[in-house]
């Protein structure tokens, strides 16, 4: 069973310099109870992807083609009222910045109660539920915490409160948008463990967005590698990390500081920059930075299934 299935999704934004093609032919699945990681540099379309799923694209953005199927419904065709019903209830989100993600003038308890506004429970039932949820994310003295305001919590606690809020309604899909990037290393590990524990408890799927390869390798079952608004490679974490088939994925893994053996003075980088998304190259989007470029790269590259579930968008990738 797949919870979320994205097929040939295309998202564009109208800008002063022309239409910006932010997502191009994005396809991947999030199976039930699996954690799918999305990696890529900044500007590769991770945030656009989240906003497209949530139906919260900016006013100048729109889904041009493709579908986002969630529990049998195509989210790109749903009206705003139905979308709002799904958000926070069936699809929930944890955002990157725990400092700014909570409302500063409402108490934590009030915000958690508001999230349950659709549940039809009584006020005391809602508060009991909030308290249980806070306890589950290991907030000490959960009952007193309900009366406190976000600025009274530390960064790590705030992120756990945000996770508690996101999982409040036991969603089928949790989108985690770089939830650990703003935290320091020890907190990062603790938060990852907490997320995994909660995911198993609630039995939800997770779409985990990060640029931290170590975290992805640690936590995720599947990986989607994005570059310039395209999915260049996807497969299980093992497939992608052990036998990357797209040159970009390979280079990205080589650049991970954690993978450097021995001491080195120079961290490898990928030369060049992401192309201007208003004028996409006609062929492969990575061609300008690729060290294995061939003539065929001037044409639109095919999605090659190298193994079951392992797909790379590159002419050089071959099925084994």
């Amino acid at each position, binding site marked *: 069973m797949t919870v979320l299935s994205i097929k040939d999704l295309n998202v564009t934004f109208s800008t002063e310099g022309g239409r910006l093609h932010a997502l191009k032919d994005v396809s991947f699945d999030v199976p039930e109870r699996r954690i799918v990681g999305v990696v890529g540099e900044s500007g590769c379309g991770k945030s656009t992807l989240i906003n497209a799923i*949530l139906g*919260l694209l900016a006013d100048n953005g729109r889904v041009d083609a493709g579908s986002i199927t969630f529990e049998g419904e195509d989210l790109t065709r749903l009206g705003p009222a139905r979308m709002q019903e799904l958000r*926070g209830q069936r699809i929930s989100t944890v955002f990157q*910045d725990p400092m*700014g993600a*909570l409302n500063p003038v409402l108490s934590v308890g009030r915000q958690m109660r*508001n*999230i349950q*506004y659709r549940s039809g429970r009584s006020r005391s039932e809602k508060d009991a539920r909030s308290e249980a949820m806070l306890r589950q994310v290991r907030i000490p003295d959960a009952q007193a915490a309900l009366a406190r305001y976000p600025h009274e919590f530390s960064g790590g606690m705030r992120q756990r409160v945000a996770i508690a809020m996101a999982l409040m309604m036991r969603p089928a899909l949790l989108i985690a948008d770089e939830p650990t990037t703003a935290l320091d290393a020890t907190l990062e590990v603790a938060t990852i463990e907490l997320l995994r524990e909660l995911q198993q408890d609630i039995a939800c799927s997770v779409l985990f967005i990060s640029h931290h390869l170590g975290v992805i390798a640690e936590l995720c079952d599947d990986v989607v590698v994005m570059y310039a608004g395209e999915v260049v490679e996807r497969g299980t974490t093992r497939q992608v990390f052990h036998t990357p088939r797209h040159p970009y994925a390979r280079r990205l893994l080589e650049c991970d500081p954690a993978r450097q053996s021995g001491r080195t003075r120079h961290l490898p980088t990928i030369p060049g920059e992401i192309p201007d998304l208003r004028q996409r190259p006609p062929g492969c989007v990575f061609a300008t930075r690729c060290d294995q470029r061939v003539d065929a790269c001037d044409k639109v590259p095919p999605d090659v299934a190298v193994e079951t579930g392992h797909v790379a968008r590159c002419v050089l990738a071959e099925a084994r």
Partner: protein
Amino acid sequence: MVIVSVAMLILFCMIYLIPGDPAAVALGPRATDAMREGLRIKMGLDKPVWVQFWNFFFAAWQGDLGRDVLSDRLVATVVMEQLPYTLALIFGGISWSVALGIPLGCWAAVERGTMADRIVGVLSVAVIAVPSFVVAIYALLIFAVALRWLPAIGAGEPGDIGDQLVHLILPSLAVGLGWVGYIARMVRASMLEVLESQHIRTARAFGLPERMITYRYALTIAILPTVTLLGVGIGQMLSSAVFAEIVFARPGVGKLVYDAILTRNYPLVTGAVLVTTILFVLLNLLADLIVGALDPRVRSRL
């Protein structure tokens, strides 16, 4: 305390620099030189200027603002009699500006870029630009003289709250109308800023209804700068209250000061202005306390 003391010093200097002899005014044209000299000694005007200030300063802190030169009543009593009228006028003005300005600004922010937004924008600038005495005169002409909906002058029957409120409508509109524009613009700007923030995006991602997001999540933050602005704006409202009180022939501190200046009734001028200054400081403090009550971040810093 410091602000009030500094204000007293400035006030005293200004009064001292105004030409004219209060004793002469008090006694009228037919008084003899000896009578004038006698009154000057009684009022302390023969002493050096710093002694005059010192006496005034000390007496004022003890609540003694001197006596009204014309009626010989205590200045404090005279001012306190008029104060409720001015307070009512200012709170009426604030009510108008808040009741119209906040919804308009909020609406303009939510409907950003639409015709409604533009109309609110133009109207805001228009009402800011019109001086309050012009508003007062036209409000009087239209609603009291031409349409006869509302009374033209006075403050209403003493003791009859309903009648007093009806008499308050037009003068307070004159005081508050310009502030409708300020507040609408201020609320619009801060709403737009707040609606862009990360926590509003989170609230949307949690599927909260747009109404709840606008009014509970965004507006509660967006009105904070407006409350601070209103605290400062009370000073400006006090000055427009003078015009409103004159145009509508209402009793009040503004009218009192105006009459006292015309008759060189210095103790009354200083007393009334001093009370107004204290009022301004207190209302500013009140605004800060309201911000503290609305914003837990400010509260925890206190």
